[in-house]
């Protein structure tokens, strides 16, 4: 077994243990991204996501040993783009609050929250 094949096999193993996308996974996922759904939506989403996840398994056949992650699509991005430490482009409070669903005393109002939770 060469090192080249190791990467493919390792990823394949990971895929095996993870390919079970089920109701429980969906419930956890909904909590994580804070979205509620109707039971009908649950069914549709479960089916669709299952299909897509099955499809993307295709990637495990690609040998990516020694390949770097693409974090920046353009090489020309690999340099600084910073700005001067200046105050400008303020958002006036009235404008900010004009889109707010609920406000009080200049603040966005939300239900009481347990401190620090």
């Amino acid at each position, binding site marked *: 077994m060469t090192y080249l094949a190791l990467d493919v096999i390792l990823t394949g193993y990971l895929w095996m243990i993870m390919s079970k996308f089920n109701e429980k996974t969906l419930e956890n996922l909904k909590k*994580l991204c*804070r979205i509620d759904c109707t039971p009908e939506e649950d069914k549709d989403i479960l089916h669709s996501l299952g299909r897509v996840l099955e499809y993307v398994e295709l990637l495990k056949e690609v040998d990516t040993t020694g390949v770097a*992650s693409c*974090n*920046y699509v353009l090489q020309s*991005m*690999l*340099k*600084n*783009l*910073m*700005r*001067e*430490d*200046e*105050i*400008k*482009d*303020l*958002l006036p*409070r009235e404008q*900010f*609050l004009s889109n707010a669903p609920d406000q*009080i*005393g*200049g*603040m*966005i*109002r*939300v*239900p*009481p*929250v347990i*401190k*620090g*939770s």
Partner: protein
Amino acid sequence: MKKLPYELWEPVVGLEIHVQLNTKSKLFSSAPNRFGDEPNTNISVVCTGQPGALPVLNKEAVKKAVQFGLAVKANVALFSKFDRKSYFYPDSPRNFQITQFERPIVTGGSVTTFVEGELKTFQINRAHLEDDAGMLKHFTNFAGVDYNRAGAPLIEIVSEPCIHSPKEASAYASAIRAIMLYLNASDGNMEEGSLRIDANISVRPKGSTELRPRVEIKNMNSFSFLEMAVESEMKRQVALYLDNPHRTPEELIPPGTYRWDIETKSALFMRAKENSDDYRYFPEPDLAPIVLSQEYVDDIRNTLPELPHDRYNRYVSDLNLSPYSAALLIQEKELCDYFEAAMKHSLNPRQLCNWITIEFTGRLKERGQTLISHKIPPLHVAKLVHMIDNNVITGRIAKQVADDMVASPELDPETIIQQNPDYRPLSEIAEIEPIVDQILAANPQSIADYKAGREKALAFLVGQVMKLTRGKASPAVVNELILKKI
């Protein structure tokens, strides 16, 4: 209550210190970086997470982070980048924080400082830039969100778990704070939240090198709270271990996060680590990486201001201050700078230090002020010390002059002395002699007592003269005169 053998155990503490940098604008938003204004008046589209808004990095924040890295002799990464850290909370404008997870700008480094008189070195693991969250203000029936602080530039400094006592914890944190002040990178104002400390605390039997499960206590904003928290948490954990010798550490100390509560002065449970968010860190696609040249870093190194420990060394070796005084002086940068300014007009650093850190600071503390806030010019304090040195006034008179200076901060001590005849020294023998004669004549028994060998009698006589001269006479001179006469 049973007394437990705490001394056989030691706490293992790692501190994460969040310091707000004192840039004019925020880290990724050009809104003002200011505390205390009306809610939601220091905001932009970026720091309120408006759709379509994009982050742009503040170069001054990068500079301050580099300065910090160099000040603690850490490795400054020439290539570092940002990551998104996802979690939902109303004070987060985007429900993700932009931080540096994988490649921080600073790694390693150390801080050397005194802990109860002993010099110790603490290792730093890393330091990175990230943006602060807004503030949630709690009321009875609702909470209000203010985004003024959202997006403020933070540097998070993570220590190695190399702290082993409450005093070490506060000494380390205090030293970090001093460095930030000396770099002029932060105002270090803990009441306003410019510096916040999270502690990760576990315990182990002294002498062992194991690392047992730990607990996190968040958001401490004073050194005394930090010490209290470390102390009480250590005791709690030790008690658990000793009371349950057959349970495993993992069972007894489940990972959890506590919040330091100012009212009850105790740590309140927030959440168990199991329920904590999966942060799903991944590289921030809206930002370029931070790419620094060696030239840039060297330039910053060459222009670093004097750091606390360097200043300490200078005070001890060049100015001959005692290690204790020097260590005390460097803690508060504002006061220390005041001392530096006064030193320009003084030749007696030790006395100057004493008058600044003890005499004046003590008096002003009662008024809730400092030499700086009360606007007493450094030159005036220097002059006062000068006059004591030259015997223009006695030490005792100087204290009264100091009181007057505090009452009227704009007044020059020379003026004060000129205006008040009681302050002018009586050193002329001619002035003192008649008073000495008067006292000696009135106290023959004391003279006899002294001659019989009672030293106290002399002191009594000197005291009587001092009383009559209202302290203006030089005690040394009075002493000499009396001895001559009897």
